[in-house]
């Protein structure tokens, strides 16, 4: 894996358990408290205070989308499904609800610690990937701008290759990304020319 998992910072973390009062809730609460988390139980839905939780454990057997104070499948924290009946429809719903890990019922003496670490790691990985995808998507959108900037620079009598190198040079001397330099060139071409010789032709 590309990064170490986060083991620290569970002390004082808040866990919300969305489950009707049950021996499973008691056993899970005992485990979480022993690990060092603060636990709050909710039923039949998560109150707004659950938005401050670091982890949510939710009942997969009787769950539905309306239980969560966020859009379906977009939880702002790691989620752990408490699965009793391993029916395909319930597993499918748990995954759509955004489960990052699961714990099988009845919950007994163990399982919570690994569920916490696995859920947090999956949540972190998901977020890192979304952020990376967003960035790549933005860069893709800006490719057209780069092409236009290179064309503008080449129009001043340079080869395409030289124009490309010049754009790279500008980005370096302005300490901005390649795409951002291109944006400035394109924006500049629509108004007074912003380039000075020192900046542009270094």
């Amino acid at each position, binding site marked *: 894996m590309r990064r170490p998992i986060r083991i620290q910072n569970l002390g*004082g973390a808040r866990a919300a358990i969305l489950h009707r009062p049950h021996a499973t809730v008691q056993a899970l609460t005992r485990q979480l408290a*022993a690990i*060092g988390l603060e636990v709050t139980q909710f039923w039949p839905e998560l109150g707004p205070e659950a938005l401050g939780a670091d982890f949510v454990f939710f009942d997969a057997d009787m769950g539905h989308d309306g239980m969560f104070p966020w859009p379906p499948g977009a939880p702002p924290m790691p989620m752990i499904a408490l699965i009793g009946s391993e029916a395909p429809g319930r597993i499918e719903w748990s995954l759509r609800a955004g489960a990052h890990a699961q714990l099988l019922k009845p919950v*007994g003496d163990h399982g919570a610690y690994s569920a916490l670490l696995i859920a947090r790691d999956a949540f972190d990985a998901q977020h890192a990937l979304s952020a990376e995808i967003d960035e790549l998507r933005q860069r893709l959108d800006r490719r057209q701008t780069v092409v236009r900037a290179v064309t503008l620079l080449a129009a001043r009598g340079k080869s395409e290759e030289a124009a490309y190198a010049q754009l790279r040079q500008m980005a370096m001397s302005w300490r901005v990304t390649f795409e951002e330099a291109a944006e400035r060139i394109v924006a500049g071409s629509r108004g007074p020319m912003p380039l000075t010789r020192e900046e542009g032709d270094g």
Partner: protein
Amino acid sequence: MKRRIELGLLFSRSGSYSLISEACRTGVLSAIARINADPEIDLSFVPVERDPGGNFDLYGPMCAEILRDTGARHVVGCVTSWSRKEVIPTLEKHGGTLWYAVPYEGFEASDHVVYTHACPNQHLLPLLDWVMPAHGRRAYLTGSNYIWGWEMNRLARERIVLAGGEVMGERYLPIGSRDVGRMIEEIRFARPDFVLNSLIGPSSYEFLTAYRALGEEDGHFRPDTCPILSCNLTECELPALGPAAEGLVSAGPYFRGEEGWPGGGSFGSSHEAAAFTAVRELARLLAGRPGAENLSLAELLASDQGGIVDPGTHHTILPALIARVEGGRFRVIQRRADLPGDPYLTRTVDTPAAATLRLVK
């Protein structure tokens, strides 16, 4: 009139870690003898023994035998974490309780286990806090190939790197293996500032002997420059080591002759003391409460006050002593204030060691 209460003992009296088993067993038996002889206590313990002989696969079945075929609900036993993890499902199934009296790697708080010896915030972390300022931050890590060695070294690596130190090497041996040559060669070339030894039994004895020979060849590897550290080596294994133990530095809640924990006598080692404490605490929980011997651990603790077992984690408060073997016995070189067991390291605030230590002459 004393109630006769059966008490399970599950120790391997042969095999690679039998010296530790014997130390724990001595602690259990001396506590039983004392309780049985005390007219003030309305109960006596009847030991029910099973000996897995160092075979990991026998712990589960033998624990089941005790809980199923005898009246015992409480078992004192297990040395390795491997065997402890083997019996937990059995304890759950039969509603039994294990009293575990050996230092371990943490990250466990079973509803069916009481941990009366130290976990890493009570042994490894104080030991690293002591060694890095005193000797340097370049470490070599060794261990036996199972969870104790793996987790101890994972945690040590995390803490050493966090402190700006460096791990020069890390190597494991199968339990029982004496094949320490490669470790010694790696250490010879890596020239660390200290070595953390989480080997057990014959592997550890062989390693310490070979390391002493290395120190005779090359002065860097003498204990005063590059010591070997241990979190589980106590007086009970010194006879197996002889002079090879000289200079070894160990962390634990007790060393022979020290005052304080656990009180109530002098013990051969912290293993013995922790096992004694387990039985004494169980007797206190059951005394004067006919029928309490059939309660689950959770019920026992819920209806009790003033006990030593933290009802949340089932760990206890222990002092953290650091001692060096000098002239065949441990001499304490540092004593840190009593620390509650923090198995998941979620309650330990990272304070500099200097704030809580006092020097012991």
